[in-house]
C-alpha cells in the first residue's frame, strides 16, 4: 500500500511546472510536501488525483495505476474552501457523501456526529459562507471523513487557522494515520511539517531537492546545529574565528551555531571550558527543516502570491 509518484513532468506553455518529480509515501504515514508558492505542490496533487494529466511519468497506489482505483480511494481538501458557499452545511455534506455512494440517511447521521465532535453542530443549517475560515475547514474535513478515503491529500490545511483549530486538526490527522490511512499535505509552514510529518519531500521549481524520513532530510546536509549558553555574555566571541562555525541565532537564552561536517561539535564545548567559561547549556542537534530548506531552496518569501494554480496565466 504505497503511493509512488514516478518522474512526473508537466509543461504549461513556456513554463516547465514539474520536472521529473518522484517520491514515495508509505502507508500509515503523514507525508509533508514542502515548497514555496509556485514550486509545483498543487500541480503534483492535481495529477495524483487525476484532475490533470501529466505529460510524462506515472502515479501508482499499491502497485496499480492510481486511476484504476475507485474514486472513493482518494480524498482531497483544496487550499481554498472547497464548499458551496450558499448551501447549508449539512446539505452539502450529504451531497458530497452521496457522490461517493454513501446513502443519504446514513451520511446525514454521520455528518451530524462529526459536526458535534468538532463542536460546530449548531452550524449545521447555516450557509457555508457565514462560517469562519476555521469552521469551513472543519466542514471540509468532515466531508472527507464521510468519504472515508485511503489516501488523503490536503493543500495547505493549516493556512489561516487559529492555534486551537490547528491543534484540533492535527490530532484528527494523527488519529487517521493510526487507523492506517495515508496522509499527504502540502505546506510552507515548516514547523508544522517538522512536528507532524514522518516523511517529507522538498520541491523547488518543479524538482524534488530532498526527500525521505524527516530525520534523514534534516541530516541530509551533513551539518549539525549546536546550542550553547555560557555564564558571561561575550564568552563566545572566539567562535567567530572558527571557519567551520556560523552563528545562526544569537539569543538571550542560548546561541545557535551551524557546524560544518568536518568539525566535531565537542571541539566547541572543549574550547569554551578551556577558556574558563561556565557552560550552562550544550546541545548537539540536527538542523531544523527550515535550515535545510533555506540551504536547499533559499529563503521563503511569505509575500509571494500563489501562481501555480493559474494554468491560464502560465499558458
Amino acid at each position: 500500500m504505497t503511493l509512488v509518484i514516478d518522474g512526473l513532468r508537466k509543461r504549461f506553455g513556456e513554463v516547465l511546472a514539474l520536472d521529473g518529480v518522484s517520491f514515495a509515501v508509505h502507508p500509515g504515514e503523514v507525508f509533508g510536501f514542502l515548497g514555496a508558492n509556485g514550486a509545483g505542490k498543487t500541480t503534483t496533487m492535481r495529477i495524483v488525483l487525476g484532475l490533470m494529466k501529466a505529460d510524462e511519468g506515472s502515479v501508482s497506489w499499491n502497485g496499480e495505476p492510481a486511476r484504476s482505483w475507485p474514486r472513493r480511494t482518494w480524498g482531497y481538501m483544496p487550499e481554498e474552501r472547497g464548499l458551496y458557499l450558499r448551501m447549508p452545511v449539512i446539505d452539502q455534506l450529504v451531497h458530497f457523501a452521496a457522490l461517493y455512494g454513501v446513502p443519504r440517511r446514513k451520511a446525514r447521521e454521520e455528518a451530524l456526529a462529526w459536526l458535534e465532535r468538532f463542536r460546530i453542530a449548531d452550524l449545521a443549517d447555516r450557509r457555508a459562507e457565514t462560517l469562519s475560515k476555521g469552521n469551513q475547514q472543519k466542514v471540509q474535513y468532515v466531508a472527507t471523513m464521510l468519504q472515508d478515503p485511503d489516501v488523503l491529500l490536503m493543500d495547505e490545511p493549516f493556512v489561516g487557522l487559529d492555534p486551537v483549530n490547528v491543534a484540533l486538526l492535527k490530532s484528527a490527522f494523527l488519529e487517521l494515520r493510526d487507523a492506517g490511512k495515508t496522509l499527504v499535505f502540502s505546506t510552507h509552514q515548516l514547523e508544522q511539517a517538522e512536528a507532524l510529518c514522518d516523511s517529507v519531500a522538498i520541491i523547488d521549481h518543479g524538482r524534488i531537492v530532498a526527500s525521505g524520513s524527516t530525520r534523514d532530510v534534516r541530516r541530509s546536509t551533513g551539518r549539525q546545529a549546536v546550542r550553547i549558553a555560557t555564564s558571561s555574555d561575550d564568552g563566545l566571541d572566539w567562535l567567530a574565528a572558527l571557519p567551520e562555525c556560523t552563528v545562526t541565532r544569537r539569543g538571550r537564552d542560548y546561541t545557535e551555531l551551524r557546524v560544518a561536517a568536518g568539525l566535531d561539535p565537542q571541539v566547541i564545548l572543549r574550547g569554551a571550558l578551556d577558556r574558563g567559561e561556565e557552560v550552562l547549556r550544550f546541545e548537539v542537534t540536527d538542523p531544523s527543516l527550515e535550515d535545510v530548506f533555506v540551504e536547499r531552496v533559499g529563503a521563503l518569501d511569505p509575500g509571494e502570491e500563489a501562481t501555480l494554480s493559474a494554468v491560464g496565466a502560465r499558458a
Partner: protein
Amino acid sequence: MSTASNIATIARREYLVRVRTRSFVLGTALLVIGVLVIAFLPLIVRQLDRVNPTKIAVVASEPGLAQTAAGTLSGVLNAPTGTGIPDPGAPPDFVISVVPDVAAGRRAVVDGTYGALLSLERQASGQLAFTLYTNEPSTGRTAALTRQAATAMAVADRLDTLGVKAADQTALFAPAEFAVTWPDPAKTDPTRDVAGAMGQDMLAFGMTILIFMIVIMYGNWIAMSVVEEKSSRVMEVVLNAATPLQLLAGKVFGVGAVACTQYAAVVLGGGAALLLQGTVAQLVLGTGGGAVDLPQGLTPALLLAFGVYGLLGFLLYATLFAAAGSLVSRQEDVNAAVMPLTLLSTAGYMIGVYAAMGLIDIRAGWVVGLTMVPFLAPFMMLGRISIGAALPWEIVLSLVLLVAMLAVALWVAARIYAVGVLLYGSRPGARVVWRLLREGM
C-alpha cells in the same frame, strides 16, 4: 459511483438549490400572475367597456337627418369586428344620441358628457359634409369608425337622391362572399379563416419567444453557476468525486428541470385560466358572459413540435453555455464568454419572429435553408410548422441535424469543460481553446 447516480445526485442539487431561492419563487409567482392577467384580459376589457360605453352626440342641419344618421352610426360603430369575442347579450360599446345644436353639443364634449360630437351639414352642392368634434386622436378608433359610417351615410344620401328605395339599399350594402384559401389545390385542411391564421401566427410567435427566453435565461444561469463553482474552488472537490461529463450533464439536467418546473407552473396557470374563463365570465358579466374558445391552431402536433424543438434547443445551448462559463473564472467575464452564443440565438430568434409575423417571406429559399441550421432551427421551425409551410422531410432533417449537432456539442463542451474548470487567471483566447480541444488536459 456509477455515472447515472452521480448525474442524478448533481442534477438534484442543482434543482433543489435553485427552486428553494426566494428569487425563483417570486419570479415564478410573477410569471403566473402575468399569465393570468393576459388570460383574463379580454374579460377585464369587456368589463371596463360595459361600465363605460362611449357616448356620441349627433347634430344635423335638417330635421330627420340626425335620426337617420344616429341609426347608421350606431350600426357601424357597434358592428361585431370579427376578432373580438361574440357577445350578443352585452350592452353596446357606443351610445348615440341626438342633440339640438352644435354649440351646446361642443360644450357637452368639452365637459365630458359626450366622447364626441358628429355634425352633418347639407352643402350648397347638395352633398353632405361631416365634422367630428372630439378630444380623442384623429386617427383613433372612434374617428376611424365614424369616417366609415360617414361614407356609408353619404352614399345612402346620394342613392336617395337617385331614387333608390331603402329596401334596395340594404341589398346593395350586403357584404360579398370572401374566402382565403391555400394556393396548393392538394391542400385542403385545416380550413383557413382570417382569425384562425392570425391565432396560429401569434401562437408560433409566442412559443418562439418562450424558447428564446428559456435558452438565454437558463443558459446564462448555467454559465454563472459554473463560474461560481470555479471561484469557490468547490469544483476541485466535486471533480474528485465525479467526472467533468457527469458534472456537465447533471448541471444541464438540473437546470433544465428548473425550467420545466417554472414553465409547468405557467402552463398550468394559463390552462386553468382558459378553462375557467367561461365560469368567471358568467360570474362577472352575468348570463350574457358567453363561452370562450381555446386559441385556434393549438394542435397537438404544434405542441409536440414546441416541446421537441424547445428541449433540443435548450440542451444544445445549455451544454455550450456551460462550456463557455468554464473558460472564465470571474462573474464579470461571463457575459463576454457567452457572447457568441447570445448573438447566435438572437439572430435565429429575430429571423424566426420576423418570418412568423410575415415581415419576411417564410417560404423564401434562404429562410428554409437557415431553418436547417441546428442553432437556428429551434427558433425558426415553429413559425413554418404552424402555418403548414414546413414539409415533413424538412422537419425530420432539421431534427436529425439538431440531434447530431447536440452530440458534437456535448463532446466539445465536455472537452472544454474538463480543462476549463481548472483554468484560472486571464480569459483564454481562441487559440488556447483550440489547443485544449486538440490536446485535452
